[in-house]
């Protein structure tokens, strides 16, 4: 997979994601744009000597400031950096040992030891307290990442029931795309299929693909090169509109 990326995908991606200087400049300016702050008094920050080390003002309307991409070159081709596999185990609320099954499963899939994730807030409705071990996550990069991707694309994804592809609108506006799997998907992995009885609890998990792409569009392009299917929305109306930038 890695060789395939280097030999075929990277050159194609370079050509496909090439932007001519004008549109590139527009995109960089869009990302660099400083939105209006909530309080107008903040606009006089430069003249005010008391405001030197204050934190930057919050933008109006909950607008995010996304990272500014570098000037494009042969080094800025979108590349898969790492894959994060995360598993939240609800049963761990009443008994911690259920976590072990998740940890074992993730270790079998990814060949790396996962770390435990603790809750940040408490939710009384689910009897969750703060700093309670509630899930596990593992981050893989390099050759293990490509083998995991291989397994996904060749074995797991084709056999999943009632799954048509990642929705084309998925992504964090910065080129990272995530997808979730139901518990049934875990049994499709060859490492787990062999020892199915050993896992007391089959959990669903989610997979986050971290790429060096700066737009969802490029991230999707990269992942489709690895043969991960995407489904477009049937209605191309307002909600189905695809954001290129």
């Amino acid at each position: 997979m890695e060789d395939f990326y280097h030999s075929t995908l990277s050159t194609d991606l370079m050509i496909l994601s090439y932007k001519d200087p004008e549109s590139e400049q527009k995109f960089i300016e869009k990302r660099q744009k400083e939105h209006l702050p909530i309080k107008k008094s903040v606009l006089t920050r430069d003249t005010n000597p008391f405001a030197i080390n204050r934190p930057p003002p919050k933008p109006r309307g909950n607008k995010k400031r996304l990272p500014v991409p570098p000037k494009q070159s042969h080094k800025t081709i979108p590349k898969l950096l790492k894959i994060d596999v995360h598993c939240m185990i609800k049963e761990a609320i009443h008994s911690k040992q259920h976590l072990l099954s998740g940890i074992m499963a993730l270790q079998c899939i990814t060949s790396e030891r996962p770390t435990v994730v603790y809750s940040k807030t408490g939710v009384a409705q689910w009897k969750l307290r703060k700093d309670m071990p509630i899930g596990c996550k593992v981050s893989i990069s390099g050759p293990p990442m490509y083998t995991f991707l291989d397994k996904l694309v060749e074995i797991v994804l084709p056999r999943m029931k009632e799954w048509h592809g990642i929705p084309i609108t998925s992504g964090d506006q910065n080129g990272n795309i995530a997808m979730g799997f139901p518990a049934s998907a875990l049994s499709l992995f060859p490492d787990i299929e062999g020892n199915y009885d050993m896992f007391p609890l089959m959990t669903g998990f989610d997979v986050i693909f971290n790429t060096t792409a700066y737009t969802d569009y490029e991230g999707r392009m990269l992942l489709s090169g690895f043969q991960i299917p995407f489904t477009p929305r049937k209605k191309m109306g307002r909600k189905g509109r695809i954001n290129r930038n």
Partner: protein
Amino acid sequence: MTNHFSYRSALSTSIRGLLARTVKKSKPKSEIPGSQNANITDTRYQIIKRILYETPKPELPKMTEQDLEKHETIDRAWKLFLRNQQEERENELAAKYRMLNEANLELEKLGSRLFNSAQIGNKIMMFPRQMKIPTETPPLNGWNYDYKPPSSDPTKPLSSDPTKPLPSDPIKDSEPLPSDSNKVSS
């Protein structure tokens, strides 16, 4: 690389045997919910806990000075090989990018309809689904000579559009690609 037989589970055969034996022991004769189920899971969890946290760490091999020297030279040689490979790739990509850029600038000077259409591109630009990722070994079923591309289906994604750029042949990759900057939208 994609040889399925090379996938090994993270558990060694001895540990798998241990687990299998305990699972057989702890299966109840009659399906009683509640306490019996809790009993099954207890034993398996104890074993998993033991495997994860209580197996002794594998010892590092003790090497003599000569062995260490050999190991280090091999390590350095491998890293050098990787470094050279990386440099080659980077130089190739840099050359291609330069050609791409120059071609685009020349096209801009001409100020033609082609340049304008090259700027826009396609809204959904993805690699085709039918693309085959090359594997190290051929498939078990052999080559499908009777393959027919699927008929146009409204529910299928638009990425199976034949006008999309096909993946370039690795053998022909040494040529610069000046004409590929014309991304003419269909």
